[in-house]
Protein backbone atom coordinates (compact mmCIF):
# COMPACT_ATOMS: atom_id res chain seq x y z
CA UNK A 1 0.00 0.00 0.00
CA UNK A 2 1.30 3.46 -0.84
CA UNK A 3 1.91 5.92 1.98
CA UNK A 4 -0.92 8.26 0.95
CA UNK A 5 -3.30 5.30 0.95
CA UNK A 6 -2.12 4.31 4.43
CA UNK A 7 -2.81 7.84 5.65
CA UNK A 8 -6.30 7.68 4.19
CA UNK A 9 -7.01 4.43 6.04
CA UNK A 10 -5.30 5.20 9.30
CA UNK A 11 -5.52 8.75 10.49
CA UNK A 12 -2.70 8.35 13.07
CA UNK A 13 -0.18 7.84 10.27
CA UNK A 14 -0.92 11.43 9.22
CA UNK A 15 0.76 12.52 12.45
CA UNK A 16 4.25 12.28 10.85
CA UNK A 17 3.26 14.85 8.22
CA UNK A 18 1.87 17.26 10.83
CA UNK A 19 5.12 16.97 12.74
CA UNK A 20 7.28 17.51 9.65
CA UNK A 21 5.45 20.77 8.94
CA UNK A 22 5.88 21.77 12.57
CA UNK A 23 9.64 21.12 12.33
CA UNK A 24 9.87 23.25 9.16
CA UNK A 25 7.94 26.09 10.80
CA UNK A 26 10.20 25.92 13.86
CA UNK A 27 13.27 26.11 11.60
CA UNK A 28 11.86 29.30 10.06
CA UNK A 29 11.22 30.72 13.57
CA UNK A 30 14.75 29.82 14.66
CA UNK A 31 16.42 31.56 11.74
CA UNK A 32 14.16 34.58 11.58
CA UNK A 33 14.82 35.26 15.29
CA UNK A 34 18.54 35.24 14.48
CA UNK A 35 18.03 37.73 11.66
CA UNK A 36 18.40 35.33 8.74
CA UNK A 37 16.52 35.87 5.47
CA UNK A 38 14.87 32.95 3.75
CA UNK A 39 15.97 32.77 0.11
CA UNK A 40 14.54 30.98 -2.89
CA UNK A 41 17.11 30.05 -5.52
CA UNK A 42 16.63 28.05 -8.73
CA UNK A 43 16.25 24.29 -8.78
CA UNK A 44 17.01 24.16 -12.50
CA UNK A 45 20.46 25.60 -13.29
CA UNK A 46 22.99 25.62 -16.09
CA UNK A 47 25.93 24.49 -13.96
CA UNK A 48 25.31 21.82 -11.36
CA UNK A 49 27.68 21.03 -8.49
CA UNK A 50 31.04 19.85 -9.78
CA UNK A 51 31.59 17.26 -7.00
CA UNK A 52 33.11 14.23 -8.73
CA UNK A 53 31.24 11.74 -6.56
CA UNK A 54 27.76 13.14 -7.20
CA UNK A 55 25.60 12.51 -10.23
CA UNK A 56 23.26 15.43 -10.98
CA UNK A 57 20.14 14.87 -13.10
CA UNK A 58 20.24 16.40 -16.56
CA UNK A 59 17.27 18.25 -17.97
CA UNK A 60 16.66 19.17 -21.61
CA UNK A 61 14.15 21.89 -22.40
CA UNK A 62 13.31 24.53 -24.99
CA UNK A 63 12.42 28.19 -25.18
CA UNK A 64 9.56 29.65 -27.24
CA UNK A 65 11.71 29.57 -30.42
CA UNK A 66 12.17 25.84 -30.02
CA UNK A 67 15.87 26.34 -29.20
CA UNK A 68 17.16 23.56 -27.03
CA UNK A 69 18.88 24.08 -23.67
CA UNK A 70 20.60 21.64 -21.35
CA UNK A 71 20.50 22.19 -17.64
CA UNK A 72 20.71 20.30 -14.38
CA UNK A 73 18.63 19.93 -11.26
CA UNK A 74 20.70 21.20 -8.35
CA UNK A 75 22.41 18.81 -5.93
CA UNK A 76 22.69 21.75 -3.51
CA UNK A 77 21.75 25.46 -3.68
CA UNK A 78 25.27 26.41 -2.61
CA UNK A 79 26.47 28.25 -5.73
CA UNK A 80 23.41 30.52 -5.84
CA UNK A 81 23.50 31.25 -2.12
CA UNK A 82 27.18 32.23 -2.30
CA UNK A 83 26.38 34.68 -5.09
CA UNK A 84 23.78 36.20 -2.80
CA UNK A 85 26.45 36.63 -0.11
CA UNK A 86 28.51 38.53 -2.67
CA UNK A 87 25.38 40.54 -3.52
CA UNK A 88 25.44 41.78 0.07
CA UNK A 89 23.07 39.56 2.06
CA UNK A 90 24.79 38.77 5.37
CA UNK A 91 22.73 35.96 6.89
CA UNK A 92 20.67 33.73 4.61
CA UNK A 93 19.05 30.30 4.62
CA UNK A 94 17.08 28.10 2.26
CA UNK A 95 15.17 24.85 2.38
CA UNK A 96 15.88 23.73 -1.16
CA UNK A 97 14.62 20.73 -3.07
CA UNK A 98 17.68 18.93 -4.41
CA UNK A 99 18.14 15.90 -6.66
CA UNK A 100 20.79 13.22 -6.93
CA UNK A 101 20.99 10.34 -9.36
CA UNK A 102 22.56 6.94 -8.67
CA UNK A 103 21.46 6.78 -5.05
CA UNK A 104 19.21 4.23 -3.39
CA UNK A 105 15.44 4.51 -3.19
CA UNK A 106 15.10 4.38 0.58
CA UNK A 107 17.14 3.83 3.70
CA UNK A 108 18.88 7.16 4.26
CA UNK A 109 18.58 8.29 0.63
CA UNK A 110 15.85 9.45 -1.73
CA UNK A 111 16.46 10.78 -5.26
CA UNK A 112 14.74 14.05 -4.34
CA UNK A 113 15.20 15.53 -0.89
CA UNK A 114 15.42 18.80 1.00
CA UNK A 115 18.66 20.53 1.83
CA UNK A 116 18.59 23.06 4.62
CA UNK A 117 21.49 25.41 3.97
CA UNK A 118 22.50 28.53 5.84
CA UNK A 119 25.35 30.99 5.38
CA UNK A 120 26.90 33.73 7.49
CA UNK A 121 29.05 36.45 5.98
CA UNK A 122 31.94 37.83 8.06
CA UNK A 123 32.07 34.54 9.88
CA UNK A 124 33.55 31.01 9.78
CA UNK A 125 32.79 27.34 10.43
CA UNK A 126 33.08 27.66 14.19
CA UNK A 127 30.08 29.96 14.33
CA UNK A 128 28.18 27.48 12.13
CA UNK A 129 29.00 24.68 14.62
CA UNK A 130 27.28 26.72 17.33
CA UNK A 131 24.26 27.33 15.05
CA UNK A 132 23.75 23.65 14.31
CA UNK A 133 24.05 22.68 17.98
CA UNK A 134 21.47 25.30 18.95
CA UNK A 135 19.12 24.47 16.08
CA UNK A 136 18.94 20.73 16.79
CA UNK A 137 18.60 21.35 20.54
CA UNK A 138 15.81 23.90 19.94
CA UNK A 139 13.90 21.65 17.55
CA UNK A 140 14.08 18.64 19.82
CA UNK A 141 12.99 20.74 22.81
CA UNK A 142 9.89 21.81 20.91
CA UNK A 143 9.11 18.47 19.30
CA UNK A 144 10.08 15.97 22.00
CA UNK A 145 10.05 18.35 25.02
CA UNK A 146 13.39 17.10 26.26
CA UNK A 147 17.14 17.81 26.29
CA UNK A 148 17.74 14.41 24.80
CA UNK A 149 16.53 12.37 21.91
CA UNK A 150 15.70 8.69 21.74
CA UNK A 151 16.54 7.27 18.35
CA UNK A 152 16.08 3.54 17.65
CA UNK A 153 16.50 2.78 21.36
CA UNK A 154 19.61 4.97 21.76
CA UNK A 155 19.45 7.91 24.15
CA UNK A 156 21.32 10.93 22.77
CA UNK A 157 22.05 13.96 24.95
CA UNK A 158 21.72 17.11 22.81
CA UNK A 159 22.68 19.89 25.24
CA UNK A 160 25.40 22.05 23.61
CA UNK A 161 28.33 22.07 23.30
CA UNK A 162 28.72 18.72 21.53
CA UNK A 163 31.91 16.64 21.49
CA UNK A 164 34.29 17.59 18.68
CA UNK A 165 37.23 15.70 17.22
CA UNK A 166 39.50 16.40 14.26
CA UNK A 167 39.53 13.79 11.54
CA UNK A 168 43.26 13.39 12.16
CA UNK A 169 42.68 12.60 15.84
CA UNK A 170 39.80 10.23 14.99
CA UNK A 171 42.10 8.26 12.66
CA UNK A 172 44.84 8.00 15.25
CA UNK A 173 42.49 7.26 18.16
CA UNK A 174 40.23 4.66 16.56
CA UNK A 175 42.25 3.24 13.65
CA UNK A 176 45.77 3.85 14.92
CA UNK A 177 46.69 5.65 11.70
CA UNK A 178 48.67 8.86 11.41
CA UNK A 179 46.93 10.59 8.50
CA UNK A 180 49.79 13.08 8.12
CA UNK A 181 51.97 10.19 6.98
CA UNK A 182 49.34 8.81 4.59
CA UNK A 183 49.18 11.72 2.18
CA UNK A 184 50.79 9.60 -0.47
CA UNK A 185 48.42 7.13 -2.17
CA UNK A 186 50.96 4.28 -2.33
CA UNK A 187 51.85 4.50 1.36
CA UNK A 188 48.18 4.64 2.27
CA UNK A 189 47.39 1.58 0.13
CA UNK A 190 50.29 -0.39 1.50
CA UNK A 191 49.15 0.37 5.01
CA UNK A 192 45.75 -1.28 4.63
CA UNK A 193 46.33 -3.91 1.98
CA UNK A 194 45.63 -6.74 4.43
CA UNK A 195 42.23 -5.48 5.53
CA UNK A 196 39.32 -7.66 4.47
CA UNK A 197 37.19 -4.72 3.33
CA UNK A 198 39.85 -3.39 0.97
CA UNK A 199 39.64 -4.81 -2.52
CA UNK A 200 41.64 -2.45 -4.67
CA UNK A 201 41.33 1.19 -5.45
CA UNK A 202 43.49 3.93 -6.81
CA UNK A 203 41.48 6.68 -5.26
CA UNK A 204 42.88 8.21 -2.06
CA UNK A 205 39.38 9.23 -0.94
CA UNK A 206 38.03 5.67 -1.31
CA UNK A 207 40.73 4.35 0.99
CA UNK A 208 40.10 7.17 3.42
CA UNK A 209 36.39 6.34 3.53
CA UNK A 210 36.85 2.58 3.76
CA UNK A 211 38.95 3.04 6.89
CA UNK A 212 36.62 5.67 8.27
CA UNK A 213 33.52 3.53 7.72
CA UNK A 214 34.94 0.20 8.82
CA UNK A 215 37.08 1.22 11.75
CA UNK A 216 36.10 4.64 13.00
CA UNK A 217 32.44 5.39 12.45
CA UNK A 218 31.14 2.44 14.47
CA UNK A 219 33.42 3.37 17.38
CA UNK A 220 32.35 6.98 17.66
CA UNK A 221 30.44 7.75 20.88
CA UNK A 222 26.70 7.40 20.28
CA UNK A 223 25.23 8.92 23.42
CA UNK A 224 25.87 12.44 22.07
CA UNK A 225 26.13 13.99 18.62
CA UNK A 226 29.69 14.36 17.38
CA UNK A 227 31.30 17.00 15.21
CA UNK A 228 34.25 15.79 13.14
CA UNK A 229 36.30 18.62 11.71
CA UNK A 230 39.28 19.60 9.55
CA UNK A 231 38.95 17.12 6.69
CA UNK A 232 41.60 16.53 4.03
CA UNK A 233 41.51 19.23 1.40
CA UNK A 234 40.77 16.67 -1.33
CA UNK A 235 37.33 16.26 0.22
CA UNK A 236 36.53 19.91 0.60
CA UNK A 237 36.52 21.55 -2.79
CA UNK A 238 34.66 24.65 -1.68
CA UNK A 239 36.28 25.03 1.72
CA UNK A 240 39.07 27.26 2.93
CA UNK A 241 42.44 25.64 3.51
CA UNK A 242 43.57 25.59 7.19
CA UNK A 243 46.66 27.52 6.20
CA UNK A 244 48.67 27.99 3.04
CA UNK A 245 50.34 24.59 2.86
CA UNK A 246 48.03 22.54 5.04
CA UNK A 247 46.77 19.10 4.01
CA UNK A 248 43.47 19.94 5.73
CA UNK A 249 40.58 22.32 5.17
CA UNK A 250 38.10 24.02 7.51
CA UNK A 251 35.26 21.59 6.98
CA UNK A 252 33.13 19.72 9.51
CA UNK A 253 30.51 17.00 9.54
CA UNK A 254 27.81 16.36 12.11
CA UNK A 255 26.94 12.80 13.08
CA UNK A 256 23.97 11.91 15.25
CA UNK A 257 23.29 8.25 16.07
CA UNK A 258 25.66 7.25 13.29
CA UNK A 259 23.69 9.26 10.73
CA UNK A 260 25.64 11.82 8.74
CA UNK A 261 23.45 14.88 9.17
CA UNK A 262 25.32 17.91 7.88
CA UNK A 263 28.42 19.09 6.07
CA UNK A 264 29.84 22.58 6.59
CA UNK A 265 32.84 24.78 6.00
CA UNK A 266 34.56 28.08 6.09
CA UNK A 267 34.02 29.10 2.49
CA UNK A 268 36.86 29.33 0.01
CA UNK A 269 36.95 32.97 -1.12
CA UNK A 270 39.92 32.88 -3.52
CA UNK A 271 38.61 32.88 -7.15
CA UNK A 272 41.84 31.54 -8.68
CA UNK A 273 42.10 28.68 -6.21
CA UNK A 274 38.41 27.87 -6.71
CA UNK A 275 38.81 27.76 -10.49
CA UNK A 276 41.84 25.49 -10.14
CA UNK A 277 39.91 23.10 -7.89
CA UNK A 278 36.90 23.02 -10.24
CA UNK A 279 39.23 22.22 -13.15
CA UNK A 280 40.79 19.39 -11.17
CA UNK A 281 37.34 18.01 -10.34
CA UNK A 282 36.26 18.26 -13.94
CA UNK A 283 39.26 16.12 -14.94
CA UNK A 284 38.47 13.63 -12.17
CA UNK A 285 34.84 13.47 -13.37
CA UNK A 286 36.06 12.66 -16.86
CA UNK A 287 38.37 9.96 -15.51
CA UNK A 288 35.44 8.45 -13.60
CA UNK A 289 33.30 8.58 -16.78
CA UNK A 290 30.86 11.00 -15.16
CA UNK A 291 28.88 13.54 -17.14
CA UNK A 292 30.54 16.80 -18.19
CA UNK A 293 29.46 19.77 -16.11
CA UNK A 294 30.50 23.25 -17.20
CA UNK A 295 32.35 25.31 -14.59
CA UNK A 296 30.09 27.95 -13.10
CA UNK A 297 32.01 31.00 -14.32
CA UNK A 298 29.37 33.20 -12.76
CA UNK A 299 30.42 31.88 -9.35
CA UNK A 300 34.11 32.50 -10.12
CA UNK A 301 33.13 36.03 -11.19
CA UNK A 302 31.27 36.49 -7.92
CA UNK A 303 34.37 35.44 -5.96
CA UNK A 304 36.41 37.96 -7.98
CA UNK A 305 34.05 40.67 -6.79
CA UNK A 306 34.94 39.48 -3.27
CA UNK A 307 33.11 37.06 -1.08
CA UNK A 308 33.57 38.12 2.55
CA UNK A 309 34.98 35.43 4.88
CA UNK A 310 31.93 33.22 5.39
CA UNK A 311 30.70 30.02 6.93
CA UNK A 312 28.03 27.78 5.47
CA UNK A 313 26.36 24.42 5.97
CA UNK A 314 24.21 21.88 4.15
CA UNK A 315 21.97 19.76 6.36
CA UNK A 316 19.78 16.89 5.15
CA UNK A 317 16.39 18.02 6.39
CA UNK A 318 14.68 14.63 6.04
CA UNK A 319 17.45 12.98 8.05
CA UNK A 320 16.93 15.54 10.80
CA UNK A 321 13.19 14.83 10.70
CA UNK A 322 13.90 11.10 10.88
CA UNK A 323 16.06 11.65 13.98
CA UNK A 324 13.50 13.88 15.71
CA UNK A 325 10.60 11.54 14.89
CA UNK A 326 12.52 8.29 15.51
CA UNK A 327 12.05 6.97 11.97
CA UNK A 328 14.61 4.57 10.54
CA UNK A 329 13.75 4.53 6.85
CA UNK A 330 13.08 7.65 4.77
CA UNK A 331 10.38 5.65 2.95
CA UNK A 332 8.34 5.78 6.17
CA UNK A 333 8.79 9.55 6.47
CA UNK A 334 7.91 10.88 3.03
CA UNK A 335 4.32 10.86 1.77
CA UNK A 336 5.62 10.07 -1.74
CA UNK A 337 9.00 8.30 -1.55
CA UNK A 338 10.79 7.67 -4.88
CA UNK A 339 10.37 3.97 -4.26
CA UNK A 340 6.59 4.31 -4.54
CA UNK A 341 6.72 6.78 -7.43
CA UNK A 342 8.98 4.95 -9.86
Amino acid at each position, binding site marked *: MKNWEKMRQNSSSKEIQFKRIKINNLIRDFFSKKGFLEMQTPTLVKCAGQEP*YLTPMEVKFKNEKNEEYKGFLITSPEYSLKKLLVAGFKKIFEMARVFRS*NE*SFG*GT*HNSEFTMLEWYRADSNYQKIMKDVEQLVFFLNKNINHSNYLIYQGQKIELTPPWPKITIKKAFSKYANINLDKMQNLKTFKRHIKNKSYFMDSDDW*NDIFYLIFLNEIESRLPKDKPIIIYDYPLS*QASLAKRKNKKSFYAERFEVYIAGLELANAFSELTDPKEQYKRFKKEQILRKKMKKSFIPIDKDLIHALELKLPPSGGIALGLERLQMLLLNIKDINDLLPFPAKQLF
Partner: protein
Amino acid sequence: MISTTEFKKGIIIEIESQPWMVMDHQFFSPGKGSAFTRTKLKNIKTGKFVERVFKSNEQFEEIEAEYKKAVYLYSDRKNSVFLLKDNNQRIPLPLESAQDKVIYLKQNSEVELTYIDEEIISMNIPIKVDLKVIEAPPGFKGNTATGGLKKVKLETGLEINTPLFIREGDIVRINTETGEYVEKANN
Protein backbone atom coordinates in the same frame (compact mmCIF):
# COMPACT_ATOMS: atom_id res chain seq x y z
CA MET B 1 30.66 -12.71 -9.71
CA ILE B 2 28.10 -10.60 -7.93
CA SER B 3 28.21 -6.87 -7.29
CA THR B 4 27.17 -5.15 -4.04
CA THR B 5 24.27 -3.59 -5.93
CA GLU B 6 22.87 -7.10 -6.49
CA PHE B 7 23.14 -8.12 -2.85
CA LYS B 8 20.10 -9.80 -1.35
CA LYS B 9 19.56 -11.08 2.16
CA GLY B 10 20.65 -14.69 2.40
CA ILE B 11 23.15 -14.85 -0.47
CA ILE B 12 26.60 -16.20 0.37
CA ILE B 13 29.78 -14.52 -0.81
CA GLU B 14 33.40 -15.47 -0.49
CA ILE B 15 35.83 -13.20 1.34
CA GLU B 16 39.33 -14.48 2.04
CA SER B 17 38.22 -18.08 1.30
CA GLN B 18 35.46 -17.91 3.91
CA PRO B 19 31.73 -18.16 3.18
CA TRP B 20 29.84 -15.14 4.46
CA MET B 21 26.08 -14.82 4.33
CA VAL B 22 24.67 -11.34 3.70
CA MET B 23 22.29 -10.74 6.63
CA ASP B 24 21.63 -7.08 5.87
CA HIS B 25 22.85 -4.51 3.35
CA GLN B 26 22.30 -0.82 2.80
CA PHE B 27 23.47 1.60 0.15
CA PHE B 28 24.81 4.95 1.18
CA SER B 29 26.71 7.76 -0.42
CA PRO B 30 28.63 10.29 1.66
CA GLY B 31 28.85 12.60 -1.37
CA LYS B 32 32.53 13.38 -0.84
CA GLY B 33 33.66 9.92 -1.86
CA SER B 34 32.32 6.96 -3.84
CA ALA B 35 29.08 5.28 -2.86
CA PHE B 36 29.39 2.47 -0.35
CA THR B 37 27.38 -0.53 0.82
CA ARG B 38 27.07 -1.26 4.52
CA THR B 39 26.66 -4.95 5.25
CA LYS B 40 26.06 -7.28 8.15
CA LEU B 41 27.70 -10.60 7.39
CA LYS B 42 27.59 -13.99 9.08
CA ASN B 43 30.35 -16.49 8.62
CA ILE B 44 28.33 -19.63 8.04
CA LYS B 45 31.17 -21.90 9.10
CA THR B 46 31.87 -20.24 12.44
CA GLY B 47 28.60 -18.38 13.07
CA LYS B 48 30.56 -15.16 13.65
CA PHE B 49 28.88 -11.84 12.77
CA VAL B 50 30.76 -8.82 11.40
CA GLU B 51 29.80 -5.44 9.99
CA ARG B 52 31.66 -4.44 6.86
CA VAL B 53 31.46 -1.52 4.47
CA PHE B 54 32.47 -2.06 0.86
CA LYS B 55 32.78 0.25 -2.07
CA SER B 56 29.61 0.04 -4.15
CA ASN B 57 29.96 -2.14 -7.24
CA GLU B 58 32.72 -4.17 -5.63
CA GLN B 59 32.57 -7.69 -7.09
CA PHE B 60 32.46 -10.89 -5.07
CA GLU B 61 32.46 -14.57 -5.83
CA GLU B 62 28.99 -15.87 -5.04
CA ILE B 63 28.77 -19.25 -3.39
CA GLU B 64 25.84 -21.44 -4.29
CA ALA B 65 24.57 -23.22 -1.23
CA GLU B 66 22.06 -26.00 -1.03
CA TYR B 67 19.78 -26.49 1.95
CA LYS B 68 18.45 -29.91 2.92
CA LYS B 69 15.93 -30.79 5.61
CA ALA B 70 16.85 -33.58 7.99
CA VAL B 71 15.77 -35.00 11.35
CA TYR B 72 17.97 -35.80 14.30
CA LEU B 73 18.11 -39.49 15.19
CA TYR B 74 20.69 -40.13 17.92
CA SER B 75 24.29 -39.57 18.99
CA ASP B 76 26.87 -42.15 19.88
CA ARG B 77 30.34 -41.57 21.29
CA LYS B 78 31.70 -40.29 17.99
CA ASN B 79 28.85 -39.01 15.85
CA SER B 80 25.44 -37.42 15.80
CA VAL B 81 23.30 -39.08 13.19
CA PHE B 82 20.69 -37.34 11.03
CA LEU B 83 18.26 -38.62 8.46
CA LEU B 84 17.82 -36.64 5.23
CA LYS B 85 14.14 -36.14 4.61
CA ASP B 86 14.11 -36.38 0.82
CA ASN B 87 16.00 -39.68 0.40
CA ASN B 88 16.18 -41.21 3.90
CA GLN B 89 19.96 -41.18 3.75
CA ARG B 90 21.70 -41.36 7.14
CA ILE B 91 24.24 -38.60 7.73
CA PRO B 92 26.73 -38.93 10.57
CA LEU B 93 28.26 -35.67 11.75
CA PRO B 94 31.30 -35.68 14.07
CA LEU B 95 30.19 -34.97 17.62
CA GLU B 96 32.73 -32.18 18.17
CA SER B 97 31.24 -30.06 15.37
CA ALA B 98 27.57 -30.90 15.99
CA GLN B 99 27.48 -31.04 19.77
CA ASP B 100 26.75 -27.37 20.51
CA LYS B 101 23.55 -27.67 18.46
CA VAL B 102 22.61 -31.24 19.29
CA ILE B 103 22.21 -30.37 22.97
CA TYR B 104 18.98 -28.60 21.97
CA LEU B 105 17.62 -31.47 19.88
CA LYS B 106 15.17 -34.22 20.79
CA GLN B 107 14.86 -37.28 18.67
CA ASN B 108 13.06 -36.43 15.39
CA SER B 109 13.66 -32.68 15.76
CA GLU B 110 13.91 -31.05 12.35
CA VAL B 111 17.12 -29.32 11.25
CA GLU B 112 18.41 -27.76 8.03
CA LEU B 113 21.81 -28.69 6.66
CA THR B 114 23.73 -26.20 4.49
CA TYR B 115 25.79 -27.77 1.72
CA ILE B 116 28.48 -26.06 -0.31
CA ASP B 117 30.06 -28.24 -3.01
CA GLU B 118 28.47 -31.38 -1.55
CA GLU B 119 30.06 -30.65 1.82
CA ILE B 120 28.04 -29.87 4.94
CA ILE B 121 29.06 -26.39 6.11
CA SER B 122 26.58 -25.75 8.86
CA MET B 123 23.42 -26.88 10.56
CA ASN B 124 20.51 -24.56 11.31
CA ILE B 125 18.22 -25.36 14.19
CA PRO B 126 15.14 -23.41 15.31
CA ILE B 127 15.96 -20.27 17.33
CA LYS B 128 13.50 -21.37 19.99
CA VAL B 129 12.93 -24.94 21.14
CA ASP B 130 10.61 -26.38 23.78
CA LEU B 131 12.16 -28.98 26.08
CA LYS B 132 10.91 -30.93 29.08
CA VAL B 133 12.46 -30.51 32.53
CA ILE B 134 13.53 -33.90 33.88
CA GLU B 135 15.28 -32.82 37.07
CA ALA B 136 14.60 -29.69 39.11
CA PRO B 137 15.54 -28.92 42.71
CA PRO B 138 12.66 -27.41 44.72
CA GLY B 139 12.68 -23.60 44.62
CA PHE B 140 12.89 -21.99 48.05
CA LYS B 141 11.36 -18.63 48.78
CA GLY B 142 13.92 -15.99 49.63
CA ASN B 143 16.73 -17.74 47.84
CA THR B 144 18.02 -14.64 46.14
CA ALA B 145 21.72 -15.46 46.18
CA THR B 146 21.40 -16.77 42.63
CA GLY B 147 19.19 -13.89 41.53
CA GLY B 148 16.07 -16.01 41.87
CA LEU B 149 17.37 -18.68 39.49
CA LYS B 150 18.02 -22.37 39.84
CA LYS B 151 19.67 -24.98 37.69
CA VAL B 152 17.46 -27.61 36.03
CA LYS B 153 18.18 -30.53 33.73
CA LEU B 154 16.34 -30.91 30.44
CA GLU B 155 15.40 -34.04 28.50
CA THR B 156 18.36 -33.61 26.14
CA GLY B 157 20.78 -33.57 29.06
CA LEU B 158 21.30 -29.82 28.80
CA GLU B 159 21.44 -27.90 32.10
CA ILE B 160 20.16 -24.34 32.22
CA ASN B 161 19.11 -21.68 34.73
CA THR B 162 15.40 -21.07 35.13
CA PRO B 163 13.22 -19.11 37.55
CA LEU B 164 12.43 -20.82 40.86
CA PHE B 165 8.83 -21.74 39.94
CA ILE B 166 9.87 -24.19 37.22
CA ARG B 167 9.19 -27.80 38.26
CA GLU B 168 10.02 -31.25 37.04
CA GLY B 169 7.76 -32.15 34.12
CA ASP B 170 7.34 -28.53 32.93
CA ILE B 171 8.06 -27.65 29.33
CA VAL B 172 10.39 -24.65 28.97
CA ARG B 173 11.23 -22.58 25.92
CA ILE B 174 14.95 -22.07 25.24
CA ASN B 175 16.69 -19.59 22.93
CA THR B 176 19.25 -21.69 21.08
CA GLU B 177 21.36 -18.67 20.09
CA THR B 178 21.92 -17.48 23.66
CA GLY B 179 21.35 -20.80 25.44
CA GLU B 180 18.98 -19.04 27.83
CA TYR B 181 15.57 -19.76 29.28
CA VAL B 182 12.84 -17.68 27.59
CA GLU B 183 9.55 -18.69 29.21
CA LYS B 184 7.47 -21.54 30.47
CA ALA B 185 5.74 -23.11 27.48
CA ASN B 186 2.15 -24.29 27.65
CA ASN B 187 1.98 -27.99 28.33
